[in-house]
């Protein structure tokens, strides 16, 4: 299974990464190279094998319900690209 330019465009859109038409072609070739390499996984019989999502087999630890954080808005917004009146600003969102 190899990717088309349309596939690359769709993946780039989902990833929110702008690709020029020229980049799209080189990206397609590189991604197909990597996917070709990954393809060898398909040959392995994994019937009945439980997927392993975590490196350790333990269960989620739970946090007591307590407010432990204080207002640090000024610190956090010191590194923000654009703020006003305590809000982060972005181009207008149309719903």
């Amino acid at each position: 299974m190899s990717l088309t330019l349309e596939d690359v465009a769709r993946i780039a859109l989902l990833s929110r990464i702008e690709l020029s038409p020229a980049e799209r072609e080189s990206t397609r070739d590189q991604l197909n190279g990597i996917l070709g390499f990954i393809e060898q996984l398909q040959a392995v019989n994994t019937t009945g094998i439980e997927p392993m999502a975590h490196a350790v087999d333990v269960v989620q630890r739970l946090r007591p319900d307590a407010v432990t954080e204080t207002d640090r808005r000024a610190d956090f917004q010191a590194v923000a690209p654009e703020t006003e009146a305590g809000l982060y600003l972005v181009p207008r969102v149309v719903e």
Partner: protein
Amino acid sequence: MSRWEVVIGLETHAQLQTKSKIFSGSSIAFGAEPNVQANAVDIALPGVLPVLNREAVVCAIKFGLAVGATIAPRSIFARKNYFYPDLPKGYQISQFEIPVVAGGGLAIRVGAANDPNATATEKFVHLTRAHLEEDAGKSLHEDFHGRTGIDLNRAGTPLLEIVTEPDMRSSAEAVAYARALHSLVQWIGICDGNMQEGSFRCDANVSVRRPGEPLGTRREIKNLNSFRFMQQAIDFEVQWQINEITEGRAIRQATVLFDPDTGETRSMRSKEDAHDYRYFPDPDLLPLEIRPEWIAEVKAGLPELPQAMNARFQSEYGLSAYDASILTATRAMADFYIAAVAAAGAGNAKTVANWIMGELAARLNKNDMAVDASPISATQLAGLIQRIADNTISNNIAKKVFEALWNGEGSSADEIIEKQGLKQITDTGAIEALVDEVLAANQKSVEEFRAGKEKAFNALVGQAMKATKGKANPQQVTDLLKKKLGV
């Protein structure tokens, strides 16, 4: 063929009543200055990690128990990936393949909400699942030089998303379900139910079909934050879909918003992009394990549920099904009733019900107040009812005392009766003297009565009551009058 069947499923987001966020130690209190309750985890600084709030899980377990669902011994948190400015991580932590709660359902009554004589239909709405997830922040579209402002205080607020099967067949059923759910989540104390503040939000999946045909294509109405809007939005949407189909246009799956100003639904532009959420297990969170002992512990702390209480009110106190359903409609109402019965004695349970549903409900309605804001407490009402029961006051005087209690003229019925001298006159000697006076002063009425005019007797009773400002025991007055008149 003009008949259409409406098919509705609801997805409800209930904000859970915890102190802190689902994955961080920020407060979830409503109404703070923008972004002051958005800590490093909430704004997704590089390197931060989520840790699950135990209380959010307790809320999910309570809900699962209350709707008779299965609570998963092991459930998984997944990432739902999409870009949106109010979603700081670029993914929402939710549950996908294995939710914490599966199945269960809610019994609803449709069509008799305000009328004891109407026949209500009972219906059972099946739940598909309920899962834990985090809320997003808020986008503020008012003008910041043509830009949108992002407030992340709400980001990370714990939500329980409750999803039904497509079981509802009308907007009335949808609203009845939503009301029942709204009452239940407050009843078990997991959500404050404040719809204005967005604590309880519904999305409705609506489709229409000819009876017997497969399900039609659905459109999802987002963010219905009042029962009235829900009804209006669904009604509009149903009519719109019928018109489209009738005019030969196919319905396309879409997400729509309801505009309360126009009463119409419209497609959301921002949702037009094809979505592919790329769910996968969140590697930062391990499987959530819920052992049977934990479920048992939560169960032990759960209040009596509305359905059980309804049945108990009927069997124990002899209430009608209608009365029992009104008194168990909300936790606050039930709490008030139970407290009043406890103070007044079980023998007065029916009188208590009548007073709550009569005088008190009317007063609360008139003042647009909820029962938990009632100026008359359950104990005060019980004190009043006890004085009726022991003949200290008559029903009519009781209304006066109720009025005085409402206005805060005294702290108890006894105090008001004492202070205002409303105690019923039951001393036979005093009443006999009174009756003699009344007979002497109203010879005309006496004669009319003797001439066979029944009404004249009532006038004499009235005179006696008037002379005592209503305090004389009406039964004793009647009995003595009859004796004196030789009836």
